[in-house]
């Protein structure tokens, strides 16, 4: 089984910070999507997803992030991705065009 970690941190419940780690592919993408959906509540004002410790992200995983971005836009929740230059999945995020719909730090 492909393993991914989905952990929330930060004290302010309105400003959610989620750190993803491990790998996300076709096998576990929908599980990751469910975990992300469970973390975001209707009182959330902004979500920051940190991909720094993610070691693999394919289009199935990107699909989850695109889907989340579109739903959060509808809910008027601000979404930001943290993908530092040099991080392993930076290329995947760049070539997918995710940067055009989500703010990338």
């Amino acid at each position, binding site marked *: *089984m*492909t393993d991914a970690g989905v952990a929330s941190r930060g004290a302010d419940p309105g400003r959610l910070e989620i750190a993803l780690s491990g*790998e996300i*592919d*076709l*096998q576990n993408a929908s599980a990751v999507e469910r975990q992300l959906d469970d973390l975001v509540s209707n009182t959330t004002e902004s979500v920051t997803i940190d991909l720094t410790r993610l070691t*693999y992200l*394919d*289009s*199935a995983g*990107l*699909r989850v992030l*695109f*889907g989340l971005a579109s739903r959060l836009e509808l809910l008027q929740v601000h979404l930001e991705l943290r993908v530092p230059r040099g991080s*392993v999945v930076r*290329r*995947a995020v760049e*070539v*997918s065009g995710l940067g055009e719909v989500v703010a990338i730090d």
Partner: protein
Amino acid sequence: MQPAEAYGERLRRLQALTDSDLARLGVDDLLDVVLERVRDLLSVDTGAVLLLDPSGAYLVATSALGLEEETRQGVRIPVGRGFAGRVAQERRAVTIPEVDHGNVLNPILREKGIRSLLGVPLCVGDDVIGVLHVGTLAPRAFTDDDAELLQLAADRIALATRARMTVAERAAASALQRSLLPGLLPDVPGLEFAARYVPGGGGDVGGDWYDVFALPSGQLCVVVGDVVGRGLPASVAMGRLRSAVRAYALVSEDPAEILRRLDEQVRHFERDVMATVLCAIVDAAQHTVRISSAGHPPPVLAAPGRAGELVEVPTDLPVGLPRPRSRHSVTVDLPVGGGLVLYTDGLVERRTEPRGRGSARAPAGGAGGRGEAVCAGVRGRMWGGDPAADDGALLVGMRTPPAPAGSLRLVEPAVPQSLRVVRHAVRTYLGAVGATAEDVADVVLAVGEAAANVVEHAYGPAGGALEVVLHRDGPRLSITVADTGSWREARGIYRGRGTTMIAALVDDVRIDRDTAGTRVVMTRTIGDERGEDR
């Protein structure tokens, strides 16, 4: 006693009831309703239906009226003993005018104070499947008319019960069969396996099986077998034989010895079981296969570009015959690109043609090629569109050409779990050929995307194979991700991004699509030579 006219009237009533109302009831309700009717019609106090258990040795109380404890306690009566056991054994109506300890085994009947009993067998064709009996609290001499009326009710119950048992058995046998056939065939460098199991006409499963497993020595054991018989009993026996072969293969790697021990096991533990089995031990390093056959049709050996030939295996007797027999084996070479096709009778024994001709057709299926493709081809040619009369198993083992030096070649089942395996192998390979961290990230993602496409889009529910080949020639890395399925466009939203991403990650990508499958061929410059242009 009643006058004859009254009986005639009752027979008509029972027949009317049998024809219309009962047909709509489930089996459990039907048993209860028929018992109630029988009680009223015959003016008796108790009634019970006992059904033969799968072993055929015991009758189990299934439905009762006035004797509810009997079903609650699941009373089991050995066939041939006691009252119900005698009815089942003698296959005719039996009456006991005066119950005592000598002629009734079931304590519940005695405790209830039953004085007289009448029982008839539940028959379907020549088979007894159970017993229906009625009893009275006052002594009574049952007449032939009583017995006839009861037999009429018994026949109705027998038919409905048999129909239910057939459906339940078929479902159980089918589930068992599925659980026992190996889901994933072993992944051995230089060898590729593919297999099919097809139930017989009407979804019937039987005792056919195939199995492939690695031994501690690294050799592979390949087995196909066919337990004589059909339905659940054959499937259950198959499960035990399959486990026994696995156990003996750990003790000996001589296929003749494995079959000798299996025969011994069957003769000792499995009465009335007979099976044909073909056991082959594949030495992947030496490219040889040692084969022993217990009455099983010989495998077909196919070399590339040539029609397959039946392997001349000395055919020893099936396992499960009364006396031990000597067993033999033969060793054959497996040429590069060649394959061995193992099958069971269901494959060749078609309703419309005798076995000899069916076997002779087998070679036509065995031209060299990829395992899955060969398997699909043979299956199509042998079974065609006709439903097979019998169930059948087909197993193909191919010796694949060695990858050129400096290459990586992987064949994995096209399932999501394989993606991680593929990524790991590609990462390891790229590290070994001096790719930079950036090369690794890009190529792993490009291969991952192409492989995920195969997993998602290439095959139907039966699945198929995912092949990944990486070859490095100087700074140029060529990458091929192939399947043998038929392409369909991506479905759903946010889909179809993979191809765009691949194009951005490699220098060049080409997609070849034909009837044999789809090949995504990519090239990418790796190592320090790249550097500046990015």
